[in-house]
């Protein structure tokens, strides 16, 4: 038996896990190998030292009571824990988005909109209703038709220019 294998078997031997066949082989090797015999003595000594440092200790006072107090507060579900984590991350993200939005409102000026005729009239404090009323008050139906036609053409032009 080689020392390398013997070393493995020695570890099993001190744990009482060596099968009888391997045990006989190891014993024969130990009789002729002082180095492995020394190893066995060292391993036994280490095991004994390890057992010596074992601390059979009791926890600090009121261990169960302290734990019961923690349990009675009701451990939150993982869902709420997740919401809480995301909430903490969401606040700064929301602030950044709000700042970008407000900044956009201040920086981006709306393009100058072309007023249509009705809006122009309203802007000039002339009611467009008066003009409409004037069309309908026209006595001659031909004149009324022509005025309506022109008003319609005017509106189309305004819509076309808006699209462009």
């Amino acid at each position, binding site marked *: 038996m080689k020392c390398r294998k013997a*070393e493995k078997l020695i*570890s099993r031997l001190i*744990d009482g896990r060596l099968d009888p066949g391997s045990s006989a082989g190891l014993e024969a090797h130990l009789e002729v190998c002082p180095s492995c015999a020394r190893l066995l003595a060292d391993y036994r000594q*280490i095991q004994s*030292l390890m*057992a010596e*440092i074992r*601390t059979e200790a009791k926890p600090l006072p009121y261990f169960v009571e302290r*734990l019961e107090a923690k349990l009675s507060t009701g*451990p939150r579900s993982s869902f709420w824990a997740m919401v809480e984590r995301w909430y903490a991350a969401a606040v700064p993200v929301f602030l950044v988005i709000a700042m970008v939005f407000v900044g956009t409102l201040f920086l981006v000026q709306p393009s100058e909109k072309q007023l249509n005729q009705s809006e122009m009239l309203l802007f000039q404090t002339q009611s467009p209703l008066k003009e409409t009323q004037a069309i309908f008050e026209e006595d001659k139906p031909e004149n009324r038709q022509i005025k309506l036609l022109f008003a319609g053409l005017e509106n189309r032009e305004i819509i076309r220019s808006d699209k462009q």
Partner: protein
Amino acid sequence: MEENQIVKVAQQGDKEAFSMLVKAYQNKVFSLAVNIVRNRETADDLAQEIFLKAYLSLPSFRFQSEFGTWLYQIAINHIRDYLRKHKKEKDNLRLDDIAEPGAEEKEASLKLAENQEEKRRKALLRQILEEMPEKYRLILSLRDIEGLTYEEMGKILKLSPGTVDSRLHRARRLLRKKLALFLSQEGG
């Protein structure tokens, strides 16, 4: 009431039943923690956290192993997480820094009282264990300090029996190497 029955009642949310389990295992869990972290306050905190984790995970316990083994599994995982998080905070004193005693020190140490020598020996072993890689430290603690069987260690550490065997062997070889000087002194 048998332990499995208590566990079943605790699984239904009965805190009194869970407290019975805590009372039965508090010393074992605390001892496991204190033997690894070597600090009573830290071990107490860890033990509390371990039982809280166990309480929350109790509905998922399927009785495929004994309750104690399952609890030890939670305890070892929690202690391992603690060791990883606090690795940097560890005392930087390494075994290599422990100077070989000089002639005067050797002479003085012979005159020391037996209990002082024992204290020194234990302190040295604890120091060496703390400096060992986490996987070796845990398996040595479970086997040689806690006295767990290979099968129990396999379940707790989720290792095959062959891996338990080889890891324990490597851990002992490293520990012997670290303790070589001390062992030769002890052996005369």
